[in-house]
Each structure stands twice: as structure tokens, then as C-alpha cells.
């Protein structure tokens, strides 16, 4: 019989990956399908990171700096773990829906807290596996395997995630503490989180500069080495077999983690209170009344309130659109100056137009609110089913909210690109057309995925918004399409046709894809919708 601790850990992990879109005989096949999907995603990401690690290894090996591979792997892991943890603190560890239930049971508070941290840690190991392992393998392949190196790598692999978990936890706690009594709590949380994402994106834009700033033999070499000392110390332990560095790594990672666990244990009830909203009721003047709206507009308004009312939902699903604007600004600001040389300007403009198209596809497709829009209805599904609203009213109200948020971001990004790169009106128009078609295609694609694979049994929105099967499939397809866009251009079309013409061809392909999806939804959408029971 499993102990209570392991039962809770198992429940936490299972709740992250369950789906209820099928029952009975089909359930097993569907579970297998989901497992295969996760496996494909893992293999795919390992391939991407393996390839990145390999190209970096060749570069660093020639400069005799293969240790930087380990630092790069640790930095990727750190970014993944911070991004995962910072969105998991709220409603996973603190303010979780099972808080009342678990606290009412004869289970020690410490067991509850430790089980939550252990579940989070296990998820973070998965991220570390993807981020660090390919780089470690390349490092040992290029600089030779040592027993001490392998041994220290295992220890480092186990303890390293504790550091970013502790930092993200404290960061989120800080945000929660600052915003707890503010009226616009949701908005401020969104702003804080967007700022954090900006910081992470900024860091990744200067990744190479940051890496070369590391000097593993001299930890005082730059500010970056001081800020990210745990990375240096871990890399030193693995690469040089340095016992003292290993000890430092263990202490630096374990002490903050123990501190946050202790902090949570000591103030669990109070900390939960911070994350549970206790607003006062707004005064309602019934006699004055509210504006009478059409059923469709009422549905649209409800969907919009759902999106803006949940910062985690908004951040996770609209991050791509926000990132697109940030990326356009960064790309514009850091653009090379080639004034004077007309040919060089034309080549650069052509390449910039192509890159703008690539970022539009990648960013608009990467996060997709439509892929979780049906699952998010959750236990309120009965309302949509019992109300006199048609299937078209339901899906188009959801689509319209998605377009309302994503389309302006795409337009702003295109305008920034046009101004910064001095693109022609035609180029701007094609970019705009591309962004609208990408938006429509992925909106409909996400909707179809979610109609086929839905999950109403979630206890935390994050489960469907971040980890749901439709979201994963959407992300995989988005990466694959963006990758194809690159490959096709560089292998077949570069030098033969202009970027403008290439983007035009891509627009036609997306238009065909969108039409196919529209026809499919018109033909089968209602059937899929009607088949959903809760």
C-alpha cells in the first residue's frame, strides 16, 4: 500500500495529464494516443535541443570552450523551470482548489505541502531532461567522458531544479503580496508577469553574448557570472570535477528550497489567503439596469470576461501575440545599419520581410486560446447545452474574442516591421494578409482539436490551458509549420524568388488550409459539439 505522500504525489501528477474525452472501450486507445503524443513531443524537443547542442558544440570545440555547453543547457533548464514554476505557484501550491478538502483530512500539513513540491519537482525534472540532457551528452561527446563528470552530473541534475523553483516561488509570492490589497489585482499581476516574460525574452535574445561573458575559471569576470553564479558553480563541478563547486551547488540549490518549504509550512494558511480573492461586493443598481444585448454579443462579452478575468489563462494563451510585438520591437531596434550600399539594403529588406513572416507564423501559432476554449467551459458545460444558442453562435463568439485580441497585436507588429525595415506597401499588405490567415487557420485548427479532445475534469485551468492534449498538438503543428516555412525557403526558393512572392505563396496555402477547416467545421462541427456530454 502506497503512503499518503506518494498517493498525493501520484494524484497531483495524474491530474495534470488526465482527459475525459472518451469513455469505455475507446478510453484505453485514447490514453495510448495521448501517451504517444507526449512521446512524440519529447522526441521532437530532444531533437531540436540535440541539434542546437550539436551546432553549438562544433562552434565551442573549435574555440576550446566546450564547458559553455553545460552552461547553455543549465540556462535553458533554468528558463523552462522558471516559466513552469512561476505559473504553477498560484493554484497549484497556494490557492489550490483542493486546499479545503486536503486540510479537512487527517493528513499532516507537511505531507500535503511536500507532496505538492515533490509533484512540481518531478515536472521540473522533465523540463530539465529536455533542456540539459542534450547539452550534457554533447559536452561528454566532444570533451570525453569521466566517471567523476558523470557522477557530478547526476548530483547536479537532481539538485539544480531546486534553485529555480525556490526563486520563482519567492518571485510569485512577492507579486501576490504586493497586489493582495490592490483593486486592479488581475491587471497588475498580468503586467508583472508580462514584464518577467519580457526579461526572459530579452535574455534569450542576447544568449550568445551572455554565454561568452562566462569565464568558468574566473567567477568575477562579469556581472552575469555573479547573477547566475549557481549555473557557473554547477558547470564547474561537472566540467572540472571540482568538489568544492559541487558542495556550493548543493548548498545554493538546497538552502533556498528548504527555506521556501519551511516558509510554506509555517505560513500555509496565511499564504493561501493572499492568493484567494476576497473582494467586496460592488453596489448594484437594479432599477438602472444594464444594456440589453443580442444573444451573440452576450456570448462574446462572456467569453471576453472569461479571458481578461483570469490572468493565468490570458498569459498562457495570448503570450505569443504579446511576444510578437516585443520581438518586432527588438528586431527593429537591433537591426543592422547598412546604409549606403543599395544592394545590401535590398538583400537585407528581403531577408527582414522573410523573417517577419516567420515570426508571425511562429508567434501567432505557438499559443492558441482556441485549443483550450471548449475544455475551459469545464463544469459549466451544462449551460451552453441547455441554452437556446446555436453551435455557430458559440464557436464564433469564441473566435471573435480570439481575433479581437490577436488581430491588433498582429497589425501592430506588421506596422512596426514596416517602419523599422522600410518595407513597401505591398510587403506590408502581404504580411498583414499572412498574419490574418495564420490567425484564422490556427483559431479553427485549435477549435477542431478541442472539439475532438476535450477535458472537463480539471481542477486548475493550467491543466487544460498549458498541458492539455489539444494545446500540445497545436504547439507541435505550429513548430512544424514554422520549421517547414524555413526549410522550404532556404532549400528550394532562396535566390529563385523574392521573399514577397514566397510569402504570397504561403498566404495561398494558409487560405486553402483555412477553407478546408471551415468546410470541415460546417460539416462536422455540430456533430462533434452535440457528442460532448458532461
Amino acid at each position, binding site marked *: 500500500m502506497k503512503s499518503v505522500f506518494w498517493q498525493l504525489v501520484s494524484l497531483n501528477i495524474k491530474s495534470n495529464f488526465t482527459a475525459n474525452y472518451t469513455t469505455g472501450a475507446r478510453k484505453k486507445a485514447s490514453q495510448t494516443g495521448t501517451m504517444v503524443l507526449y512521446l512524440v513531443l519529447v522526441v521532437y524537443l530532444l531533437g531540436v535541443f540535440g541539434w542546437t547542442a550539436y551546432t553549438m558544440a562544433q562552434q565551442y570545440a573549435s574555440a576550446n570552450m566546450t564547458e559553455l555547453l553545460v552552461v547553455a543547457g543549465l540556462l535553458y533548464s533554468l528558463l523552462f523551470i522558471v516559466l513552469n514554476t512561476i505559473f504553477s505557484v498560484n493554484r497549484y501550491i497556494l490557492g489550490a482548489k483542493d486546499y479545503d478538502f486536503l486540510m479537512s483530512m487527517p493528513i499532516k500539513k507537511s505531507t500535503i505541502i511536500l507532496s505538492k513540491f515533490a509533484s512540481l519537482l518531478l515536472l521540473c525534472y522533465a523540463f530539465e531532461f529536455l533542456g540539459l540532457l542534450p547539452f550534457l551528452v554533447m559536452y561528454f561527446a566532444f570533451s570525453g567522458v569521466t566517471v567523476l563528470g558523470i557522477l557530478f552530473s547526476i548530483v547536479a541534475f537532481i539538485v539544480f531544479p531546486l534553485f529555480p523553483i525556490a526563486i520563482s516561488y519567492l518571485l510569485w509570492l512577492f507579486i501576490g503580496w504586493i497586489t493582495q490589497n490592490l483593486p486592479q489585482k488581475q491587471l497588475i499581476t498580468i503586467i508583472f508577469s508580462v514584464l518577467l516574460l519580457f526579461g526572459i525574452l530579452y535574455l534569450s535574445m542576447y544568449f550568445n553574448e551572455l554565454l561568452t561573458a562566462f569565464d568558468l575559471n574566473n567567477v568575477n569576470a562579469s556581472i552575469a557570472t555573479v547573477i547566475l553564479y549557481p549555473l557557473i558553480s554547477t558547470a564547474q563541478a561537472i566540467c572540472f570535477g571540482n568538489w568544492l563547486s559541487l558542495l556550493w551547488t548543493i548548498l545554493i540549490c538546497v538552502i533556498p528550497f528548504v527555506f521556501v518549504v519551511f516558509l510554506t509550512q509555517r505560513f500555509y494558511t496565511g499564504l493561501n489567503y493572499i492568493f484567494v480573492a476576497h473582494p467586496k*461586493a460592488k453596489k*448594484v443598481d437594479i*432599477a438602472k439596469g444594464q444594456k440589453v444585448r443580442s444573444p451573440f454579443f452576450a456570448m462574446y462579452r462572456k467569453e471576453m470576461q*472569461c479571458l481578461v*478575468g483570469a490572468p493565468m489563462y490570458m498569459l498562457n494563451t495570448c503570450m505569443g501575440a504579446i511576444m510578437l510585438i516585443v520581438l518586432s520591437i527588438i528586431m527593429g531596434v537591433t537591426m543592422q545599419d547598412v546604409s549606403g550600399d543599395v544592394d545590401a539594403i535590398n538583400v537585407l529588406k528581403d531577408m527582414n520581410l522573410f523573417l517577419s513572416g516567420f515570426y508571425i507564423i511562429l508567434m501567432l501559432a505557438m499559443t492558441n486560446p482556441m485549443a483550450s476554449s471548449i475544455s475551459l467551459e469545464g463544469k459549466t458545460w451544462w449551460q451552453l447545452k*441547455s*441554452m437556446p444558442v446555436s453551435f455557430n453562435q458559440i464557436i464564433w463568439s469564441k473566435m471573435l474574442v480570439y481575433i479581437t485580441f490577436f488581430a491588433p497585436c498582429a497589425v501592430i507588429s506588421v506596422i512596426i516591421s514596416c517602419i523599422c525595415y522600410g518595407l513597401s506597401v505591398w510587403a506590408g499588405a502581404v504580411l498583414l494578409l499572412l498574419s490574418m490567415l495564420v490567425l484564422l487557420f490556427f483559431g479553427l485548427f485549435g477549435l477542431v482539436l478541442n472539439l475532438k479532445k476535450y477535458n472537463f475534469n480539471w481542477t486548475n485551468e493550467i491543466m487544460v490551458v498549458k498541458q492539455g492534449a489539444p494545446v500540445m498538438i497545436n504547439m507541435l503543428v505550429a513548430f512544424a509549420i514554422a520549421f517547414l516555412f524555413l526549410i522550404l525557403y532556404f532549400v528550394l526558393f532562396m535566390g529563385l524568388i523574392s521573399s514577397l512572392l514566397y510569402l504570397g505563396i504561403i498566404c495561398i496555402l494558409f487560405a486553402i488550409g483555412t477553407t478546408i477547416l471551415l468546410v470541415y467545421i460546417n460539416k462536422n462541427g455540430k456533430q462533434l459539439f452535440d457528442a460532448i456530454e458532461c
Partner: protein
Amino acid sequence: MLNINNVHKSYKKGVEVLRGISLNVEAGDLFAFVGQNGAGKTTLIKCCCGIHDFEQGEILIDGVDIKKEPMRCKKNLAYVPDNPDMYSFLTGYGYINFICDVYGMGDERKARLEELSRRLDIQKSLGLKISEYSHGMKQKIALIGAFIRNAKVLIFDEPFVGLDPFASSELKKMMREFCDNGGCIFFSTHVLEVAEKLCNKVAIIKAGQIVASGTMQDIKGDKSLEEVFLAGGE
């Protein structure tokens, strides 16, 4: 007003949950639907509201088939589930207005909301988000959402659960008034005393089949409804 004819329903596991259910709820009827846990009450109710599909039989709402014209049927009925999970990001007031918009209600909603919220004593909490509500408060908002529009058929699943005694008493009056004005209510309950005192008709379901159905007097005779129910409805 609500006609259920020979309805069969199975879940995908192959288990038949409803086995040839037939019931008639006329205008003015306050119809109680009782049965053990898992007998099929909620499944039948969900079939009547168009939430669940069913393989065989027909369900007519005011003479219209729910399978053929679900939109017309849904406009004429209002449903409150046993656990009213509603849009937690809306305020109670926002939710009621959303419901009124969806059902095409105009400004008449103001007077209705004022009256209903006063009767169920929830005026002061209308500005709170539903996520802040207790189970009873959610139940009150869901009930207001059902009574506020001009539905002909009300279908409730355990409507008294979670309500305080005042709200419970008021709800009984509201249900009676609704039926006296020509509407009909079909509701499930485990509180047999309430069913006995409040309703003019009753049906007992057991393992997906109706074992007894008719006027309250015909079903219970000189016994109490509880005695009839415990004897298996015979």
C-alpha cells in the same frame, strides 16, 4: 407541456440507464421525481433539457420535439442542475443579465430581478463574483435565472439543496405560484416530505424504469410517500 415517451438511454459503456421511460407533465402540474441515487433521475432530466442525447423515444416540450427543434424547446424551458456550476468570473448581476440577453429579454428584467432577488434575499450579494458565492447563493442565482424569463417548463434537479430555511420556504411559494399561473415544474428531490406536501403528481424511478407514476393521492393513498417509496413504489 412536457411529454416523455418511451425514452431509452445508454452510456457508452453499454449500460442502459433509462429503460423506456414515459411521463406526462401537464400545465399547472408540480411534478416530483423521486428515486434512489443512480436510478437515472439526473440522466432523464438532462435528456429533457437537451444536454444528453438518447437513443430511442421522444421528449416534447410544449408539443415540440427536443431532438428535432432543440432551439425552440430550450427557449421554453429553464433548467437548474443539482450543483449549479456557473461562470465564476461573472458577478451574480452580470450572470442574470447574461441569461436575460441570451433569452432575448428586454427591460422587463429589471422589475423581475428586483422582485426575485428580494424574495430570495440576495440583493446585497448581486455585485459579488460568483466565485465568491456559497453553494446556497449559487443555487439562488441559478433559480433567479430560471424564474426570471418567461419559460413554460421549469426543470430542477434537487432545487432545495443548500438553501436556507427562508429561501427554501420562499422557493416553495414561487414554485406553487408559477404552476398556478399555467406553467409546470418537473423536479427531482430526495426530500419526500416536501414532495408530498408541495406536489400534485409524483413518479418513482428505480433502475431506469418508472415503478409508479400518477397523482400524489393515487400513488400514496393512505400511506406516506416515504412508506410507498421504501416499499419499492408498489
